[in-house]
């Protein structure tokens, strides 16, 4: 047992912090709460790529650094702590690159991985559809073989990074006759192909959080099918484990935590800082307890990955737990701010950059994205505890 990071890992953490603090000092971006990973800045992604920090844990032969998943954990933890605008590379770095590594052909790896690593391929996610949410296997988007190509027709929703992606990871039905789990395949395709239309979806805060993507007879060469045809659903399940595995499920609104603590120290009521109020101390300390538990549950997930196992039950547990923490953080911050909590960023008098209401409203979705908390509990109960399905 060892609950410490090694000296080398701590040095890496300092290096990442130094870089991020430098960026903030230069005014290149402002830290923000970003639970959807919406904040994107291509130049930032480029600078991260120059440091070799995209594909950090991927094999060197494809341009990765071959570093450990614990190093990647440290990197992402610091990115989240500072609310860095990392969306351009986040999804590819987290799950798509890994899927290509696991299931892609040599040609796909050679073509796509270097682009991701250089910070040039912004891969969005095309999974959910109007009729396929938690029940992803009921998706209807079709890919029909036509000579050396597939012709894709259908619609995707809730595409993360949808408005600025130049590639999309897409799951589509390739065998309409087969049982629904057994006729699905995975693709990674460029979004500039003819027949693709992308329209924004605004979330409850008014931010463009996702996109709808329409496919109208989009012709895709067969070589962009990833892995085994009709076996895509089983490949996705593995990928979803990684989608849920990270600290972004715990630290999506972390800058709000720092900000509300600072706020209570600096704001006086009846001549005393709010931070000396017993009730407020207790609330913030409780958040700290919950945060530390989430951190441990997520560290466990990363150690599972590092062992070479897919973090299935562990990731489901950590994600369901951690998004509840994020919601509790947002709700507590609103309680502390009282009437001021309703003031959004652009408003006169808005405290802490309006982060609290933004996060509070947005937090309703934290427990829905990447597997609802209900689906995740099903995984913990069924696969983790062995409870029967009937």
């Amino acid at each position, binding site marked *: *047992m060892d*609950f410490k990071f090694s000296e080398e890992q701590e040095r890496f953490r300092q290096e990442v912090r130094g870089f991020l603090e430098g960026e903030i000092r230069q005014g290149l971006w402002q830290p923000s709460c970003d639970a959807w990973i919406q904040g994107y800045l291509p130049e930032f992604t480029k600078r991260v790529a120059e440091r070799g920090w995209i594909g950090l844990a991927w094999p060197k032969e494809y341009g990765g650094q071959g570093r450990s998943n614990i190093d990647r954990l440290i990197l992402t933890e610091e990115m989240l702590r500072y609310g860095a605008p990392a969306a351009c590379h986040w999804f590819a770095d987290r799950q798509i690159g890994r899927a290509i590594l696991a299931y892609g052909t040599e040609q796909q790896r050679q073509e796509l991985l270097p682009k991701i690593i250089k910070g040039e391929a912004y891969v969005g996610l095309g999974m959910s559809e109007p009729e396929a949410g938690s029940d992803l296997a009921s998706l209807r988007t079709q890919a029909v073989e036509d000579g050396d190509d597939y012709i894709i027709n259908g619609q995707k929703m809730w595409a993360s990074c949808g408005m600025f992606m130049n590639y999309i990871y897409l799951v589509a039905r390739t065998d309409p006759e087969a049982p629904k789990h057994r006729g699905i395949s995975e693709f990674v395709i460029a979004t500039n192909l003819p027949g693709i239309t992308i329209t924004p979806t605004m979330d409850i805060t008014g931010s463009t959080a996702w996109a709808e993507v329409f496919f109208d007879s989009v012709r895709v060469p067969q070589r962009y099918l990833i892995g085994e045809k009709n076996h895509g659903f089983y490949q996705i399940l593995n990928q979803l484990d990684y989608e849920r595995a990270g600290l972004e499920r715990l630290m999506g609104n972390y800058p709000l935590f720092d900000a509300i603590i600072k706020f209570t120290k600096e704001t006086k009521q009846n001549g005393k800082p709010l931070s000396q109020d017993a009730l407020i*101390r207790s609330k913030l300390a*409780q958040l*700290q307890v919950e945060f530390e538990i989430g951190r441990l549950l997520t*560290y466990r997930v990363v150690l599972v990955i590092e062992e070479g196992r897919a973090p299935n039950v562990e990731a489901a547990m950590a994600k369901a*737990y951690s998004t509840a923490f994020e919601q509790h953080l947002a709700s507590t911050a609103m309680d502390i701010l009282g009437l001021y909590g309703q003031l959004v960023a652009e408003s006169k008098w808005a405290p802490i950059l309006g982060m609290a209401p933004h996060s509070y409203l947005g937090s309703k979705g934290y427990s829905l994205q990447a597997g609802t908390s209900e689906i995740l509990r*099903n995984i913990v109960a069924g696969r983790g505890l*062995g409870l029967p399905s009937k």
Partner: protein
Amino acid sequence: MDLSLSEEQEMLKKMARDFLTNRCPKTLVKEMETSEKGYSPELWQEMAGLGWMGLVLPEKYGGGGMSFLDLSVLLEEMGRSCLPGPFLSTVVLGSLPILDIGNEEQKREYLPKIASGEAIFTLALTEPNAKYDAASIAVKATADNNDYIINGTKLFVPDAHIADYLLCVARTNELAKPENGITIFLVDAKSPGISCAVLKTIASDKLYEVVFDQVRVPKKSILGQLDQGWSEVQKIIERAAVAKCCETLGGIQQMLEMTVDYAKERKQFDRPIGSFQVIQHYCANMATDVDGSRFSTYQAAWTLSEGLPCTKEVAIAKAWLSEACKRVTALAHQIHGAIGVTIDHDLQFYTRRANAAEATFGDADFYREIIAQEMGL
């Protein structure tokens, strides 16, 4: 970063589980709850024979030279089996403070006796106001030539009736800061003037009121420095809180396993109740609470064991456990249904211990305030 037990610790865990499954069945637990002693001297000697009492003591005092983390593994298994008796009192509250701040003579006199299972120790710390802060120490020790005379009442003292020695935390000086002027005395439990009255508790463990009436102890029985005992008391409380977390963790892990097993077997509406999603989600919530308890407890135990500053880690663990065990207990009962609230079902042993553990060595509020300080609030 490594969250797993070492091979040796896994072996210790398995050995402890096998031994306790065999030697500490619920029939014994039940019997001990109503017995006057509250523990089995035969079992106690067997445990001493296995080297458990001296596990963390240096070899020169008859111990096994292992770490606090190793001891934590053992404590978890003891919690899992509801082991009755003065193990935590003797080892965690008694031997470790002597090892910390005792002089060589005291170590040589007491530690080998603890390791061999010959002597039982406990700590007389809390008083009728039931708090773990320095200002609450009102039991007085007054110098009288080469002796001190102790007067006052200690409450919630575990295992006092069978203890050979008490570590008594007493006020020796009234100074401006309540933390100053506190001294720990090593008191022979048979000293004239000490009387114990048993308290009837939800856990049916053995807690006592201990009244000190003109109890005369020699000066050499001071453990550590005169008037400067509070920093060690804080260490004792921290260590005891971690030990209590370990025991509680063992208990709630067992509750989770019992409950999942029951949900798989119990049929209603022609299907196992564990196939209903609501029951599955309850179980998933329990598992999350138990895993959170596991990692936070072992983080605290590891940090303490490594000799690193551990105030925050201990506070996180105990603040979490004190509330997680409420939730786990409630769901275990909800899933077990009415059978679980009968006195004949094993679940009740765990429920009563978990509920008692919530406040012991500091409740969630107590530790949240410590965390608030650590956060710089």
